[in-house]
């Protein structure tokens, strides 16, 4: 049996399950925007209480779990005990997400996007992370004899870094902590955007190793990342404006990655069932980097900040890039799987992003049209609801295929 396939079913059930849940909430939210009176059916559980479920379940459920699975495939012994341990860790993770959902519906939230864990729910995800870490550390220890000194050092070092994550997350969830703010937009600074994207590039770079995809080592990828890290360190990390040249230059350091990331990932022999998803992720990546840079520039930022155009950008990142990449991971782990739902998802996502981008562009000039629900914005929201429904349908198909 494929070494990594032992985990794939367990992992898929959790990951696709959260994708379905988050998408279902997203469709509900899209319907509420189109027909606000529907909110009356839900009593006190209004639009604002559902939003954290959509955001956090996408991020910590769908986006995070396949990456955790890739890590587990690298470290955990692929036997019955390992699978049981992985089930335990994924169960703890899912329990944390479910309880988090209950807390947000009950109105217990920090008021910080993607860091809504608050009050009694605040330690839940860090505790689930500790459970996962314990499983990874246990198996790294049990398998220490299988690796040379370098292999052991890499695994030990990575586990040490990962051990800091739960504490950092717990700290970041606090209301007293808030990241740097771009004073001219109220949003993220160029340095913050660069830093978070570089972190994602580190994960992308490590994927072939975690998934044991055959291919050539590419030192230049890590060298380029080191250069990017240098640019990040040199940038102003305070409340810096997008009018500051340094911030623009820092963010421009991502532009070469338009070609570097696809070139790197193409150097590995991905499974045939994973390749369509990988190619889709290249397309989304290119659109994401270009639009991310453009929307940061003076003039564009002023026009698009706070509008649906930035919601489009978020969906471009999560539903476009991350989903395509996560399907690459899951198909690679399984060593197969059908392409069902590929075009349904991709076209749904493209329509979703395009509609919101157009709406956002228009909204900047005439906010009244959106606030008062004119015909154009209603039609756009209806189209968006349909596109969201298509993505939900695709995710349900994948979940069913996982044997859930």
């Amino acid at each position, binding site marked *: 049996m494929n070494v990594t396939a032992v985990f794939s079913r367990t992992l898929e059930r959790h990951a696709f399950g959260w994708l379905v849940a988050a998408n279902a909430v997203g469709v509900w939210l899209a319907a509420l925007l189109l027909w606000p009176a529907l909110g009356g059916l839900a009593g006190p559980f209004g639009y604002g209480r559902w939003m954290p479920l959509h955001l956090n379940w996408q991020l910590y459920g769908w986006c995070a779990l396949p990456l955790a699975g890739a890590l587990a495939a690298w470290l955990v012994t692929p036997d019955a005990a390992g699978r049981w341990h992985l089930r335990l860790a994924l169960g703890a993770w899912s329990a944390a997400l479910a309880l988090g959902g209950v807390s947000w519906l009950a109105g217990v939230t920090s008021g910080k996007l993607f860091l809504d864990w608050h009050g009694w729910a605040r330690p839940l995800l860090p505790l689930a992370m500790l459970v996962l870490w314990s499983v990874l550390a246990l198996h790294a220890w049990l398998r220490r004899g299988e690796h040379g000194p370098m292999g052991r050092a890499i695994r030990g070092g990575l586990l040490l870094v990962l051990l800091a994550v739960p504490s950092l997350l717990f700290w970041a969830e606090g209301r007293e902590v808030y990241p740097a703010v771009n004073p001219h937009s109220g949003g993220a600074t160029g340095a913050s955007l660069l830093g978070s994207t570089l972190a994602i590039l580190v994960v992308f770079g490590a994927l072939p190793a975690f998934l044991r995809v055959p291919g050539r080592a590419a030192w230049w990828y890590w060298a380029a990342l080191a250069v990017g890290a240098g640019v990040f360190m040199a940038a102003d990390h305070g409340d810096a404006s997008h009018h500051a040249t340094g911030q623009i230059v820092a963010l421009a350091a991502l532009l070469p990655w338009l070609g570097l990331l696809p070139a790197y990932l193409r150097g590995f022999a991905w499974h045939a069932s994973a390749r369509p998803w990988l190619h889709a992720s290249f397309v989304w990546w290119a659109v994401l980097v270009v639009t991310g840079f453009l929307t940061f520039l003076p003039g564009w930022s002023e026009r698009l900040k706070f509008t649906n155009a930035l919601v489009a950008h978020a969906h471009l990142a999560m539903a476009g890039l991350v989903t395509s990449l996560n399907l690459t991971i899951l198909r690679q782990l399984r060593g197969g799987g059908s392409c069902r739902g590929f075009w349904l998802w991709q076209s749904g996502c493209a329509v979703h992003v395009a509609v919101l981008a157009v709406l956002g562009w228009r909204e900047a000039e005439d906010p009244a049209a959106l606030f*008062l629900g004119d015909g154009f914005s209603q039609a756009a929201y209806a189209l968006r609801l349909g596109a969201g429904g298509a993505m939900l349908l695709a995710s349900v198909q994948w979940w069913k295929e996982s044997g859930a």
Partner: protein
Amino acid sequence: MLVAAVIAATYAFFLIFAEFAFLELVQTAAGAVRPVMAALAAAGVAGSLVAAWRFAAVKAGRALAVAFGLCAAGAGLALVVPPAGLFGAAAVAGLGLGGLTVTLAASLRGLLEPARLGFWIGAGTGTAYAFCNLPWLFAASPRRQTLVAVALALLGAVLTWRWRILPVAPATGVDYAGRGKTTWIVWLLALVWLDSAAFYVIQHTPDLRGGTWGGPGLLASNALVHFFVALAAGAWADRGRAASVALAAFALLVAACGLLVGGETTGVAVVYTAAVSLYSTLLVHYPAHGARPWLAAGVFAIAGWGGSALGIGMAQDLQRIPSWFLAVAVVVFLGAWVYRRGPRGSGAAAGLALMGLLFADEARAQSDPVALGREVYVSEGCIHCHSQYVRPGTTDGVRWGPAVPMDELRRESPPLPGNRRQGPDLTNVGARRSAEWNRLHLQDPQAVNPGSRMPSYAHLFAGDAAAGEALVAYLGSLGAERAAELRAAQADWRPESGSGVVAEGPRLFLRLCAGCHGPEGRGDGPLAGRLSGPPPDFRQPAWRRLPPGEPDPERALARLIKFGVPGTAMAGHEYLGDEAVVSLARHVRGLHAASAVP
């Protein structure tokens, strides 16, 4: 007796070092308490898991001595290392404590007569609590308390080094089957969670602290209550009444928390002390009776370390125990009781727990309505549709008023700049909208603003309407101090020349104004009766808001339509473009002129 002494040493080490002295040492030396305590908890969980993994009865004596040694080493390190080294001290002490609790609990059935297991556990637990309440120790400096903890751990190591423990068969029965185990872990989790939160609140509220642990007399009576209640709890557990003891502990703890929520100090000490003794005895008795190392690890990792983290985290964040949380805890505890009874009960239990969590009305105990209103704003997720950020140098300033300085934004906890505008920016909404308008709009947004995507928040005004009125108060506070600056900017505003398409005016009037002013401007719209002051009848010869000699009435009228009339229900329409505003102004003037003709 010796076994009771070892139980007492373990509990006393945990209470006097991990819960008190170490916290104070970290606070004094490093300031950053949370990361170090998180390291202690993480190491405690790791120690529990390792102890369960490596447990063997025949080697348990040595394992206990090693664990005691690690505890002593961790506590000793805390006295001598620099601030950065406190993480190491926490890790060593946590590993020791985690290993010690699991190994001890898994060994007790092999050391004690089964019929007296609870009694001796109660004796050890009660002795530990009584010892820690001795005035000379309770009021001692953190360093002295730590030295005592080191001495206790070393004593424990000496006592256990040569122990020979008999292997025993794991307990069976309803409490050690799948449902029973889940129930007990949920119960103990709820108990530790509530206790940790209550303890934090008492410690950080001077009146409560004084009323609970203030003075030698109170400490001595606490010590006596602890000792005898723990003994009684153990004896009841020996008679097979452990579940009843858990229920009694929970009821007392909820009563103590209820008193805290109500701000009551009288009687808290006795109720709280008794509750803590009852459940602390069970926390050892349940895993000890089970004689299952992995169950002990589960109990101490989830209920012990997890419950403490959840309780302290909640109290630190909220600075109180919300009454809704108590309601949820009751539902979960009783739900688990039903669940323990079998498959039929499980669905009802899950349903009860979920209903309790979802429908628990958050008792927002804040006394300041603005602060409470901010909590409501955060809880309801208003940030997902409304920003509070005026971008300098953009059209935001004209629409939404003056910007807020960055240092003012950063002083908020948390800052709420938002990232989306499905509706208007609210930075200065307190200067732009009256309380009356906000109240009406929150209750019935579509009636006030046809086409609005905002859901109704009428439920916030149900009952005593405290949440709704607090939200109105909070919105009223936003930008109130910038009202003069806002008015000055509005006075300077003039529509771009050439604005205004008259044909647009009637349609806009019917859509945006007729709700209050009526379709013909007679002041007889459907909302008029819900306003404190009736809207003007435009057919009257005199304008209510325009002075008779106004040189540019169209511009003045356009300004009223754009920015509203402060302090009244007449709201502005800041989001409309100049063309739409001027069209409306011309239409309204037309209504007035037409009606003014005799």
